[in-house]
């Protein structure tokens, strides 16, 4: 389940962590709506549809990392449905001190490992976990490399293609995903295609419920290159590598969560203001504007927007915002809005000059 889960521990326990990101725009919702009121976001109802249609029959357990009240209560619904051998709500600490939040997090991870051990009897040794961490380090490096190439040459690969390639990593073993990413890099490192007269944008707000592919395509077709985003944030959550030469890799994973997490609407940002982090990203990615695209009824993302948009206003950074849901099927209005945004920047704006 999104947003962030340290998949390394499941890999080390000889398991496969599968990211459940909702039913998207492919799954017709019939039963899921009977479990959620109209004013609750779309993703949990499509997940209910999937589970009630037995799409998760082969799954051994379900882990719900803390994101918001809806996902927290969804964990309780899975418990009531009695699916899998275990259902765990992973309470990611909001205290970022090693001996306080860190110790609690270690216990949370050990609880998950115990549940997995009860299923397959695999003990996670430091060697196994160090190995798994190194594979996921490599995975993040490769994804970052693709984003870096796209920063300089966004015409070489569409944002929708990047999205699909990164999302594949949520359902296949990391070894296979790394091999795919390496092949992709070998392809996009060579020049191909022609640069078009598009603005460079950062898309923000899609950290949990994912936008439909059609929406990502629409933004790019309407005159933008998506240079940075918070889609599939979990795959890039840890900023940098995690130590792989340690006798206590659980602690290494914990330290990484405490010290190297990216910013997100699901993490309290005291002492680490999200508008400052966003500004750094805008500068480092050298974008022309920000598109705030959040799922309808998403309290965490939508409550961030006034804070982030104030920073944009104060810095004269252009932005637009709109809502979507994972099954949005009509993009005409969004295309017009994004197209106007793009045109207004291309035709009337001086390039954004922010001090690095």
């Amino acid at each position, binding site marked *: 389940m999104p947003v962030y889960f340290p998949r390394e521990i499941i890999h080390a326990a000889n398991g496969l962590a599968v990211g459940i990101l909702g039913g998207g725009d492919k799954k017709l919702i019939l039963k899921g709506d009977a479990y959620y009121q109209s004013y609750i976001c779309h993703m949990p109802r499509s997940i209910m549809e999937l589970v009630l249609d037995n799409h998760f029959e082969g799954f051994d357990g379900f882990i719900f990392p803390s994101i918001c*009240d*809806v996902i*927290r209560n969804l964990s309780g619904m899975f418990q*009531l449905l009695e699916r899998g051998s275990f259902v765990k709500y992973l309470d990611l600490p*909001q*205290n970022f001190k090693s001996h306080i939040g860190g110790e609690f997090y270690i216990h949370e991870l050990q609880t998950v490992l115990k549940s997995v051990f009860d299923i397959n009897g695999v003990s996670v040794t430091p060697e196994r976990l160090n190995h798994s961490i190194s594979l996921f380090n490599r995975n993040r490096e490769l994804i970052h490399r693709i984003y870096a190439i796209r920063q300089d040459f966004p015409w070489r690969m569409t944002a929708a293609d990047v999205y699909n390639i990164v999302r594949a990593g949520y359902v296949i073993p990391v070894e296979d995903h790394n091999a795919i990413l390496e092949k992709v890099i070998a392809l996009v490192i060579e020049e191909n295609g022609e640069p078009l007269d598009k603005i460079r944008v950062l898309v923000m707000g899609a950290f949990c419920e994912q936008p439909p592919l059609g929406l990502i395509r629409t933004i790019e077709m309407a005159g933008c290159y998506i240079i940075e985003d918070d889609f599939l944030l979990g795959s890039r959550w840890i900023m940098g590598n995690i130590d792989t030469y340690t006798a206590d890799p659980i602690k290494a994973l914990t330290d990484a969560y405490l010290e190297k997490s990216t910013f997100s609407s699901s993490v309290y940002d005291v002492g680490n203001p999200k508008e400052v982090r966003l500004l750094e990203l805008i500068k480092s990615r050298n974008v022309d504007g920000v598109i705030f695209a959040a799922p309808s009824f998403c309290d965490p993302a939508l*409550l961030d927007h006034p804070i982030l948009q104030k920073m944009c206003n104060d810095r004269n950074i252009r932005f637009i915002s709109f809502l979507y849901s994972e099954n949005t099927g009509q993009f005409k209005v969004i295309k017009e809005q994004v197209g106007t945004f793009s045109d207004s920047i291309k035709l009337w704006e001086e390039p954004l000059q922010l001090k690095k």
Partner: protein
Amino acid sequence: MSKDVAKERSMIIQKEMIANHFMELSTAKETGKKVVYTFVPGNISELILSFGMLPVYPEINALQSGMRKKSGDYIRDAEQHGHSEDVCTYVKCDVGMMINGNIGPTGEKIPNPDLLLLSYTGCFTFLKWFETLERLYPGVPVALLHTPYQEAHKITPEMTAYMVKQLKEEVIPKMEQVSGNKYDEEKLKAALRNSSKVEQHIINIFDTTKHRPSPIDAYFAGVYYIGPINSGFRGTPQAVDYYAELYKEIRERIENKLGPITPEGVMEEERFRLVVEGPPNWTHFREFWKLFYDMGAVIVASSYTKVGGVYDMGFRVNPDKPLESLAEYCMNCYTNLNLQQRVDLLSKCITDYHADGFLVNSIKSCNSFSAGQLMIMQQLEKKLEIPIGFIESDLVDPRYFSYSNIKNRLESFFQMLEQRKMIIKTA
């Protein structure tokens, strides 16, 4: 309906307590008392008061704004400042109130905070709310107390240890810094002794709905009963006196076989006994309540009155373990219970208080309550074969209170209860 609506002594005491609290707040800057903003669920007021500071609860301000018909304008103002229509209206009401001068329910300005105590229990939006407040009051220190969720249907020693460490190393040092006073464990223990007595009184009070007729309404009047313990009086001798007096009055009502007091007097005929899940609507509170008492429906238990603490399952604060006790209190609040625990608790209420039906008031703003409510309904229907009703409204956004819609649904629900009674009677 009897038209005797003379105020009882407990009502007068409560009114004075609340008025004095707001008076004290309004003069805090002159008296030098420090002000702490915090939340009702998991409100560790005993600790705040032990440092000589005054608590302010933004969601209480929001609900008061709702009852005073001011929330609609506040929400619109917050939306004009960029807040989405989709998000929690308590947050928007609070932001709007601040934009408009932060005038409290008594008409006096609520002082700015000296400390933002983010004790977030069972509601993720609290976290986002305080991120907003932190920017509205720049430079004010924030103390965060993360309350782990009871995901495994229990409180583990690790969860308690995590919270106690946060109290010792994050919360208490910041309180010392802001108040200028040292942590005094004896003061805290004394306050907890009062809380323990109050918790027992509260259980006794809400347990009186076992009687027929029920002497109280545990939802509409219940929200007044939980007022003092949820608005700054946890751990105070005034709270002990208030709840002792309230319990005494309710016992007198039982002796006299009196039904609950409503705004239009004593309810004379108890026709339906209900358990209600979810917070009430505040913008049309009286009209909402009237829909029930006009039909002779009394609420014998409600989950909302447990939002600031659940004592039904035996939990009481233990003054001998003050910090552990505060931690466990926070973890025991209703919205920090997982869905199975909520089903069990509601089931117990329905059975113990002989309810005829179960009603959900689903609140648009409150995912903490609302997400999962439909499954709770299914579980209770299956387990207890009890009639279930469902209505929708909002906390403080008047745009989401549809009187006719709610009335229609309630009338259908009451008809269903009536027919079921007839069937049971003839069976």
